[in-house]
């Protein structure tokens, strides 16, 4: 954390090396957000690069009292939402999943279930497409970036009740699709996550 503050300070004073370290640190969360939002690896790469480029240009406007991650994800989320609104529609492809590289998880499920898990991931990605751009961003920030409702509100420039409402609506919509598609669950809870019941 102290390293991060030092890098931000150095980057604000014109150090490209310090900014490169910030890019290295945040490339995966930013890329993941863009990928889950846009659904295509090429578009996600482009959006993630654009996010870092925008943050580089506007680093002087960054308020050090705020979380850098939230600020960065906010740029990425707004960029993706704008892009989706411009496109009006997105084209998702199941094959795209194969062109990406998932981070190895030390708690990975049984290799025998890997194929089923990948299929579910692809289905989940397809289901995300049905959500409104802002709802999708809220879901991605909540589940993939582990953001709290307050952080999501800051990132998406919404109120906390609005975030709650959007998350509830999105989860209901996803559950409806899940039920309609008759997807059988084969998921494993990550050890650090406590069950709701």
């Amino acid at each position: 954390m102290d390293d991060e503050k030092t890098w931000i300070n150095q980057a604000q004073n014109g150090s490209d090396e310090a900014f490169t370290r910030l890019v290295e640190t945040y490339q995966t969360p930013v890329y993941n957000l863009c990928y889950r939002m846009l659904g295509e690896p090429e578009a996600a790469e482009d959006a993630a690069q654009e996010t870092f480029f925008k943050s580089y240009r506007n680093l002087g406007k960054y308020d050090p009292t705020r979380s850098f991650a939230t600020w960065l994800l906010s740029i990425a989320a707004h960029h993706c939402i704008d892009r989706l609104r411009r496109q009006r529609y997105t084209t998702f492809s199941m094959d795209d999943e194969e062109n990406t590289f998932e981070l190895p998880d030390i708690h990975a499920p049984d290799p025998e279930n890997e194929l089923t898990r990948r299929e579910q991931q692809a289905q989940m990605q397809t289901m995300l497409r049905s959500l409104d751009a802002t709802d999708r961003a809220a879901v991605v920030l909540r589940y993939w970036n582990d953001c709290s409702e307050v952080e999501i509100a800051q990132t998406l420039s919404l109120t906390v009740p609005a975030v709650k409402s959007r998350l509830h609506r999105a989860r209901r919509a996803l559950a409806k699709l899940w039920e309609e598609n008759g997807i059988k669950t084969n998921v494993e809870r990550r050890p650090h996550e406590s069950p709701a019941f």
Partner: protein
Amino acid sequence: MNHRPFEEWLLENQPLTPEQKQELRDHLKICTNCTALTEVDLALKSTRLVAPVAGFTDRFQLRLAAERKHHRTLLLWGLSLLGLIVILAVGVVIFELYTTWGNSPVQIFVTGMSWLVTMVSSIRTYGSIGLVLLKVTARIIPMSLWLTAAAGCFLLVFLWAASLWKLSYATSVRRLV
């Protein structure tokens, strides 16, 4: 059994008492909506982060260098244009001085002033001509035609701006892909 509290428990991810947990388990056996909600929640929690293809930082640095080069090129063009304008202006002044070379300072001043007066009066004359033409044509051409022409101009400007925006967006996407 009332469905509402169970859905709220699931959506809010509230901590539940052992009794509530048992009630929820019983409810899930009969409610497909709440089961789907639970399964989606688990599926979302089990998904992993997707990382970019290796070399993301290198590609960012390349892009940054390309943007800087583009910015430098634009700056160079701007400065060149400004330099050209300055050279032309200086050239005009030198030419005027050369043609009046050897004359007295009063004559140079008079020549300069007459040149300035000619310029100002020309601009005013052209302005007056334009106004007269506008008044004449305004009387000849009906209002409906003016409105149509204005709407047409507005549409053309809008199309021009939209195509420029599309072109710049497509170019930026192509450049990055």
